[in-house]
C-alpha cells in the first residue's frame, strides 16, 4: 500500500498505470485516514464514500481493459462546498442552504468527471466564501493540521487542510481576494488563483462575480499545473470564461527560467511584516537567485487602497448575488413553520439563516449601492480598482513576474481576529490586488512540510504573473521545488 504522505497526483498516476495499486485501494485508504484525522481537523462538511468508491472502481475496470487513462483518473479530490456536484449537498457553509442538493455539475466538475477524477467529499469554508479563517462557517471550525489551535486560513480552509492532512490528494477552492492562496500558505500547500476568466465559474455559488475564480490546491507545483490544465478553458455557461493556450503547462520538464526578471514591490516589504515571514521570503528570493533569476525593485503605488476598494465594491456584488436566497427555491427547511405571507418568508429566513458576516456585507452592499452614496463609495471604489490594475500593467512592462509574501503573518490563533472584522480584512492586504487586476498568482510553501522544525508553521511566498501567463509562475515554482 502506498504511503499517503508521499503520494502526489504525478506519482499516483504512475503507480496506477503500473498497477502497483488500484484506485479503489487508494480511495479506501483515504477514507480510513479521514476517519482517523477528521475528528481533530474538521476539513469536511460531507463525505461521498459510496460514489467515490464506485467511480474509483470504474477507473480500475478501465485499466484492467488496458484503456489509456488521463493524468487525473482515479485521483481522490476534495471540493469546496461552494462548487456544485450533481446529487451532493452544496451548502457554501451557510444555514440557508442546509437542505440544498446540487441539481447540476459545475463546469469544473464536468471536466474532472470526463477525466475520471474521484470526489471524496465537500470541504468546509467561510460562509459563502466570506472570510479569511474558515471561522465564519455556520457548521464547524476547521483546525490547521500543523497546529490545531490555529486557523487553516480561509475561505477555502477545508480544502487546504484536507490536502495538508493527507485527507485528499488535491482539492479545489475559490479565490476572490485571498481564499485559495491564504489557506495554502497557512497550511503549507500550493494554491493557485488563475487569471480571471481562465476557469469557468458555472456552478460556483457566487460571492463577487467580477473577482471569483476557482483554483487548485495541491502538494506540489507540478500537481497544481496538472489540475489547473484540467479545469481551465472556455465554458458556454460562463460568458466571462476564455480559451487560453495552456498546452505545455504540465510538460514533464518545466520550461527554462534563466533570464527571468522578478519584481519586488516596495509596498509589500513594509514594517509590520512578521519576522518569520520576512526571513522565509528572503530565503526564497536567495534560492531563486541561485537558479539564475534576476531581481529588480518595483513600485505598486496603489497597494494600500486595494483593501478599502474591495470592501466597498465587493459588498455591492454580494448583496445582489445573495438576493436569490429567498428561503424557498434552494431547499427550504422542512421543520420551518409556514410563514403567513411571502414577504414574511423572506425576512424571517434571511434574518435567521445568514451568518453575521453575510449580513454585514449585504447591509454594506445595499448601502453603497443606494442613491446618494453610489458615487461616493461604489463608483469611487471601481475607479480605484482601475488604478490598482494600472499599477500591474506598468510593473509588467519591466518584469516578468512579481514576488511578495502571501500574508503579513503565519496562521493565527482560532478566535484571535473573529470579533474584529477590520483586522480580519487586513490579512488579505498582499493577495487582494492580484484579484482586482485580474492577473494570476500562486502561493508556494517556502519549504516542504517534511522539513519544518517541530512547532514551526508553514509560510508561503506569492508569485504574481501576467494575465494568461500561468506558465511563468508554474515554471518558476517547479524549478524552486525541484532544487
Amino acid at each position: 500500500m502506498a504511503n499517503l504522505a508521499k503520494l502526489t497526483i504525478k506519482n499516483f498516476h504512475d503507480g496506477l498505470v503500473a498497477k502497483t495499486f488500484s484506485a479503489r485501494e487508494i480511495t479506501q485508504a483515504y477514507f480510513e485516514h479521514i476517519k482517523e484525522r477528521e475528528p481533530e481537523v474538521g476539513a469536511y462538511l460531507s463525505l461521498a464514500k459510496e460514489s467515490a468508491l464506485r467511480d474509483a472502481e470504474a477507473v480500475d475496470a478501465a485499466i484492467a481493459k488496458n484503456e489509456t487513462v488521463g493524468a487525473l483518473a482515479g485521483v481522490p479530490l476534495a471540493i469546496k462546498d461552494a462548487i456544485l456536484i450533481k446529487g451532493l449537498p452544496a451548502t457554501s457553509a451557510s444555514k440557508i442552504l442546509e437542505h440544498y442538493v446540487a441539481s447540476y455539475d459545475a463546469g469544473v466538475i464536468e471536466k474532472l468527471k470526463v477525466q475520471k477524477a474521484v470526489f471524496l467529499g465537500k470541504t468546509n469554508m467561510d460562509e459563502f466564501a466570506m472570510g479569511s479563517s474558515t471561522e465564519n462557517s455556520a457548521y464547524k471550525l476547521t483546525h490547521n493540521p500543523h497546529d490545531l489551535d490555529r486557523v487553516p486560513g480561509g475561505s477555502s480552509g477545508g480544502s487546504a487542510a484536507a490536502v495538508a492532512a493527507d485527507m485528499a490528494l488535491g482539492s479545489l477552492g475559490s479565490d476572490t481576494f485571498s481564499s485559495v492562496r491564504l489557506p495554502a500558505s497557512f497550511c503549507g500547500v500550493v494554491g493557485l488563483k488563475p487569471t480571471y476568466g481562465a476557469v469557468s465559474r458555472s456552478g460556483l455559488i457566487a460571492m463577487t462575480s467580477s473577482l471569483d475564480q476557482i483554483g487548485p490546491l495541491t502538494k506540489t507545483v507540478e500537481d497544481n499545473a496538472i489540475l489547473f490544465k484540467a479545469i481551465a478553458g472556455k465554458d458556454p455557461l460562463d460568458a466571462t470564461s476564455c480559451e487560453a493556450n495552456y498546452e505545455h503547462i504540465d510538460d514533464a520538464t518545466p520550461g527554462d527560467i534563466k533570464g527571468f526578471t522578478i519584481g519586488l514591490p516596495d509596498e509589500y516589504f513594509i514594517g509590520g511584516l512578521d519576522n518569520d515571514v520576512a526571513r522565509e521570503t528572503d530565503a526564497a528570493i536567495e534560492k531563486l537567485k541561485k537558479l539564475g533569476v534576476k531581481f529588480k525593485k518595483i513600485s505598486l503605488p496603489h497597494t494600500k487602497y486595494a483593501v478599502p476598494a474591495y470592501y466597498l465594491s465587493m459588498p455591492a456584488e454580494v448583496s445582489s448575488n445573495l438576493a436569490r436566497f429567498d428561503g424557498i427555491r434552494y431547499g427550504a427547511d422542512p421543520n420551518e413553520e409556514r410563514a403567513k405571507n411571502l414577504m414574511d418568508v423572506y425576512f424571517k429566513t434571511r434574518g435567521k439563516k445568514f451568518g453575521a458576516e453575510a449580513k454585514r456585507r449585504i447591509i454594506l452592499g445595499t448601502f453603497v449601492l443606494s442613491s446618494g452614496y453610489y458615487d461616493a463609495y461604489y463608483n469611487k471604489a471601481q475607479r480605484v480598482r482601475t488604478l490598482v490594475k494600472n499599477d500591474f500593467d506598468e510593473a509588467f512592462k519591466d518584469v516578468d513576474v512579481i514576488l511578495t509574501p502571501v500574508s503579513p503573518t503565519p496562521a493565527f490563533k482560532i478566535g484571535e481576529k473573529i470579533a474584529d472584522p477590520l483586522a480580519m480584512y487586513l490579512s488579505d492586504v498582499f493577495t487582494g490586488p492580484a484579484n482586482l487586476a485580474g492577473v494570476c498568482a500562486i502561493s508556494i510553501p517556502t519549504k516542504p512540510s517534511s522539513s519544518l522544525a517541530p512547532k514551526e508553521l508553514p509560510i508561503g511566498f506569492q508569485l504574481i504573473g501576467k494575465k494568461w501567463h500561468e506558465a511563468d509562475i508554474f515554471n518558476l515554482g517547479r524549478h524552486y521545488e525541484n532544487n
Partner: protein
Amino acid sequence: MSSSINKEELEHLAKLARLELDPSEEEKLLSDLGNILEHFKELQELDTSNVPPMAGGTDLKNSFREDTERENTNRGAGTEAFPESEKGFLKIPPIFE
C-alpha cells in the same frame, strides 16, 4: 460625506435587503459599519476624476453565441429543491393578505 450609518438608516437598509435583525445585531452592525466606513475614508484622498471605473473582471466586450437548439440534460433541474411544486412550477405562500 457621512462616514457612519445611523439606526434609522440601518433599519431602512435591512428592509430593502429583506433581513430581519434583532436589536443586539443592530447594535453590533452599527459599530462595525461605522469602523469600516471610517477606515475606508482614505480612498477619498485619491483623485479619480479622470479614471474610468473598472466594473468587470475581463477585457471581453461581449460574448455571443448562436441561438440554436442544444442537448440539455438539466431541463427542469432545480424543481426538486422546491418545498412544493406543481407541473414544474414553484408553489409559494400568498403574496397579498
